[in-house]
């Protein structure tokens, strides 16, 4: 059901771990729905993401999207990192099954949450960043069962 790229990032997740004294940390999702993502950012004085780590409780897609999202934002400045949308993550993974699209939304949201945390801690405002919801609702496509 998963693409090769997803399986690669699931089996060999990039950037797993924690960053001590991270510039920003964001945790989104909830255990009730079975997905929690936490992203750590290490941002240098030029607002460039020097390092990025994640911890994720969730399905294969949740782990793969976390891994890919960290890869995509690493090395970017915070403004460019904001452009890493869930669509970008999905495309980089060659797609996700419809029921798993919410995982990519979660990954986008986790980065935003970490950036928000960074902004709050450093008392700056990041253009275009809104306060993240910490609960991502799951827009499951549902058929008309009886």
């Amino acid at each position: 059901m998963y693409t090769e790229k997803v399986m690669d990032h699931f089996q060999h997740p990039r950037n797993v771990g924690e960053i001590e004294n991270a510039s920003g940390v964001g945790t989104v999702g909830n255990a009730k729905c079975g997905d929690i993502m936490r992203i750590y950012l290490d941002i240098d004085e030029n607002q460039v993401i020097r390092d990025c780590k994640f911890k994720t409780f969730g399905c294969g897609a949740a782990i793969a999207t976390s891994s890919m999202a960290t890869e995509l934002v690493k090395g970017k400045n915070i403004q460019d990192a904001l452009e890493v949308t869930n669509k970008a993550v999905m495309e980089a993974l060659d797609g996700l099954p419809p029921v798993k699209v919410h995982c990519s939304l979660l990954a986008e949201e986790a980065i935003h949450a970490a950036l928000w945390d960074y902004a709050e801690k450093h008392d700056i405002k990041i253009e275009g960043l809104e306060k993240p919801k910490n609960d991502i609702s799951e827009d499951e496509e549902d058929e008309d069962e009886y």
Partner: protein
Amino acid sequence: MNKLIYLDNAATTKTAQEVVDAMLPYYTEQFGNPSSIYGIGAANKDVITKNRDIIAGSLGAKTNEIYFTAGGSEADNWALKATAEAYEKKGNHIITSKIEHHAILHSCQYLESKGFEVTYLDVDENGVVDIEELKASIRPTTILISIMFANNEIGTIQPIKEIGAIAHEHEILFHTDAVQAFAQVPINVDEYHIDMLSSSAHKLNGPKGIGFLYIRTGVKIRSFVHGGAQERKRRAGTENVPGIVGYGTAVARAMRTMEKRTAKEVELRDYLIERIENEIPYCRLNGHRTLRLPNNVNFSFQFVEGESMLINLDLKGICASSGSACTSGSLDPSHVLLAIGLPHEIAHGSLRLTLSEEITKEDLDYVVDQLKEIVALIRSMSPLYEDFLKKNK
């Protein structure tokens, strides 16, 4: 990985070679319609009776009390909807449990939309229905009690004999979904006061697409599929002759091997449970420890999500499931695990391993070794585990 360790026999089983061999002639040689008059057709009528007979015998039922369906789901739908319709003059109340298969639960919801009232009994932390609660829910309008014989996820076996006796005493029809229990534990419809019973062949090394509903003589249940006069006019459709032959053969085989097979499975099951409990921390056995299907093991692992566990096991050649295969399209954790009181996040980390006669102790040793590593790996990536460790430092 070449070796495949199939531990999802509650989802479906491999069709036994003996079963396939028995079916084959009915595709290309004796392929006639049993309703026909000529040899290759009419002979199939006797073939069907012979197989019906085998199945009836295994339950202590009469031959003509077995009605073939397309599977367990159809049998469950038939039992509930057609009984409701046939007895609605008598009353509109049905009693079932919170841990039934969706074929029962969704049929009940359908019936609720038609004006029936349904009581969904709670279960205790082991998944056992409370007999006192059952008694207390009986009303003068109760027409049907439907309680599954054994649960497909956690393997808990219900006190069917007592439930049957209560139903019998109150003159209420008693249906049991025995899709998981049939041919795994001995069942006698008279001894257990069962009026209707559902089964599905593919759960016992028979083919997919065939099941049956046992209907006790005298139960005035209507047709669910209307049309031709097959199955004593109660279930229309050209008979699935190869399927019926496969089913009968599978039942004969399962009955023949039941005692030895289940004794071995219980031993292996308990070995597996013991090793997991001893070697993997923060786990919980789901389902009753002894009132349990011989082949069912179900654990929840804290801080672990089920799907990533399954994929990792698959990568090691181990086929397992997390909750019920039938519900895996959904993101919600299993209703069964919630009903036994698990919090959502723990329910998400459940693993079902269901054995077969082919599984060996060596297989299970391999499985436990892999599982230990996988659970450790997933936990090392889990923010929940991180928080837990920090809190307990």
